[in-house]
């Protein structure tokens, strides 16, 4: 018996992932600290103080939230096995809902409408994919077209004659409160201004994160945490994820597969709508046609980037928001990023050498040298190039670390109940 037990588990199996999973928070913290140190060092060398300034961080936050929320929407539905390319469309619906109601009845009402509109988009997706078993991508693409068409059509009908608005934009929406942790600013600002190694960086980051933050940003962060708790720490979440991993197994244990898929996709839509609401109300204070600018897709990317997990998703969105803030705010800092890339590549190359992956290492080295040379032979990047920053960075990071992605087993598969 016991011998059987030992041998039937594949002996070749590597150290169980659990062990690593336990120490993961520590590892991440360590990584973060190292990364920060490197960043700080480069900041000191190049005195591109914007690399870790409060301004950058808070801008990054604002830019990351819509992507993060959209990605979170994607995460909910894909965890239940429904691919959601329609995020963009649902987001567009959200922006319009927020603008249309927002300028008349205030931001909170607008926000609610945004969520509602997104949710409707989600339900359409659910009906198509779950009830009619349509290919998920097709439905998603259709919803993107619909989202655009419906909003433009409605805007023409509902906003054309609004004061200070028009067919393509809403009148301004009043802003939401931006609370701060009291007393913090006074302490951190001087610290940051000294530009000390590491200390000022931490001060800057804290200041960016804790002062003058939109209430909606706070809400967004809470939603990410809540999503983790709900999906990974509750029976509801377990059932929802099981539906995305193996619907037939779930079904055989009495889980109402379709119900959970519906809930997940609806929530997904609601979150995408909220992302749109954030864009309109917090980021812009106004609804404008084409406001989402493909953020739905970026959100999707962030989710995959984050390996279908809230933490990873947050990192993905954060990285994107940070680099985007960088390129919008400060060309010098972007230029300094070249050095960061150089450092990053060096580390990775070292790892590859250690792992005896010669080719990969060589490639990495080449790119490292290139970025260094580029840095040394230029004192600013041309405007258009800087706008590439977030996209290139995302690709770069993925290329350096994309292997162990694990999407839900039944993700994107059309589910048909036993015997149907």
């Amino acid at each position: 018996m016991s011998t059987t037990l030992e041998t039937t588990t594949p002996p070749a199996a590597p150290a169980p992932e659990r062990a690593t999973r336990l120490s993961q928070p520590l590892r991440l913290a360590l990584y973060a600290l190292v990364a920060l140190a490197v960043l700080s060092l480069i900041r000191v060398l190049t005195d591109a103080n914007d690399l870790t300034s409060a301004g950058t961080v808070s801008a990054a936050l604002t830019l990351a939230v819509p992507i993060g929320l959209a990605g979170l929407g994607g995460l909910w539905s894909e965890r239940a096995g429904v691919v959601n390319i329609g995020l963009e469309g649902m987001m567009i619906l959200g922006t319009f809902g927020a603008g249309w109601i927002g300028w008349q009845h205030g931001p909170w009402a607008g926000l609610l409408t945004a969520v509602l509109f997104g949710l409707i988009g989600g339900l359409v997706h659910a009906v198509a994919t779950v009830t009619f078993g349509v290919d998920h991508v097709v439905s998603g693409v259709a919803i993107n077209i619909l989202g655009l068409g419906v909003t433009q059509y409605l805007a023409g009908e509902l906003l054309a004659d609004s004061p200070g608005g028009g067919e393509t934009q809403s009148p301004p929406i009043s802003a939401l409160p931006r609370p701060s942790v009291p007393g913090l600013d006074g302490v951190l600002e001087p610290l940051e201004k000294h530009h000390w190694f590491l200390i000022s960086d931490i001060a800057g980051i804290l200041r960016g994160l804790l002062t003058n933050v939109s209430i909606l940003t706070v809400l967004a962060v809470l939603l990410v945490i809540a999503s983790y708790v709900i999906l990974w720490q509750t029976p509801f979440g377990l059932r929802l994820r099981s539906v995305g991993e193996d619907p037939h197994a779930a079904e055989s244990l009495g889980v109402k597969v379709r119900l959970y898929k519906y809930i997940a996709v609806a929530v997904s839509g609601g979150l995408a709508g909220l992302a749109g609401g954030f864009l309109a109300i917090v980021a812009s204070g106004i609804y404008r046609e084409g406001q989402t600018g493909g953020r739905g897709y970026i959100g999707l990317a962030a989710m995959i980037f984050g390996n279908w997990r809230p933490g990873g998703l947050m990192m993905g969105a954060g990285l994107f928001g940070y680099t985007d803030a960088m390129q919008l705010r400060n060309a010098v800092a972007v230029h300094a990023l070249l050095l960061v890339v150089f450092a990053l590549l060096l580390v990775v190359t070292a790892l590859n050498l250690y792992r005896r992956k010669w080719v990969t290492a060589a490639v990495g080295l080449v790119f490292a040298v290139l970025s260094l040379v580029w840095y040394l032979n230029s004192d600013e990047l041309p405007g258009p190039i800087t706008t590439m920053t977030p996209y290139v960075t995302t690709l770069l990071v993925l290329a350096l670390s994309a292997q162990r992605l694990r999407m839900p087993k039944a993700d994107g598969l059309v589910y048909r109940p036993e015997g149907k």
Partner: protein
Amino acid sequence: MNADTVRRVGLSLAAPALAIILSLAITSAVLAAAGNDPFDTFKQMIEYAKEPRTTAMIINGSVTYYFAALAVAFGFRMNLFNIGVDGQYRLAAMLAAAVGGAVSLPPILHVGLILLVAVLVGGLWAAVAGLLKVYRGVSEVISTIMLNSITTALIAFLLTTDKLAVQAEGSNNIGTKPIPASGQVPGIGLVPDSPLKVYGLIVLAVIVGFLYWFVIEHSRFGFDLRAAGRNEEAAVASGVNVKRMILISMAVSGGIAGLVGMPQLLGSSYTYSLDFPAGIGFTGIAIALLGRNTALGVAIGALLFGFLDNSSQILDLEGVPKEIVMITQGVIVLSVVIAYELVRRYRIVAQQREVGRRLSEPPAPAAGNDKTPQGAQA
């Protein structure tokens, strides 16, 4: 059997019909809700579409869409989602235009060169995503999304007067050096008494469409492609080198994408300028899905979208918001697949009934005997 074929044909017609009816109904509802007379609106569009010039415009629009949709469809055939067609065709068009404007060659060669450049650029740009997927495991969905934005920046970087662009006197536009006559493709008077000619490259579209069909359906490569698309593991076991397939199909998809801008470039604008149409790649996705990734279906889808886009021009003049057609397009994509899905389910059930009829008869032992595994001893 004959009755079968009749039914099969009937079914394959049922789906599109159902879809059209559904989308017309919904569109009408939306129109009516906003106080516009649906019937009148459709009449307007059709009347307008029947004008020779508009017909020509519709065909031209469809030609462009066709390339885009084929590019996407090719990827879909082996489960690759190339969202990057948009970036691929823009970069290809821009560089091809630059080359075409820079050189002077005898007509055929000149055009050939431009097309070649376009295909190569599109293919290589797409191959980047392929490489990332094969060697670094980066999902092509992300990489192509990112590459689209990178393309935009790249073009902006290159399209300046000190690099590839020229600025006409008094113009605020900026574009590549215009392609001389030798590099232009004359239009064809396909539509009788239309002052507007149909893009000469419609011929190329037909050829590419045929090749697409032939390669996918009749070649070994196509078989491997579809095998890898439908069951990758089985394909590997059968000796398909999936990594290579991914690279090739990504590159081919991008190559076709490279052609998207050509009808416009060589048939009408002759330069890649700031107002060169963008976003066709995304329309292509919708059309590819609408056309079930088949050469013919995609052609029909392209014509449908071409019709809706162009004939909607008249609506504004009549005070009907032309965004309505976008709603129609979305609804069509959705209702078509729903219709196909319903028909597909019906087919499967029918087929199982078939299997059942032959396999499981009323359990009378007499009938049973000849079917017992006894017979297995061959």
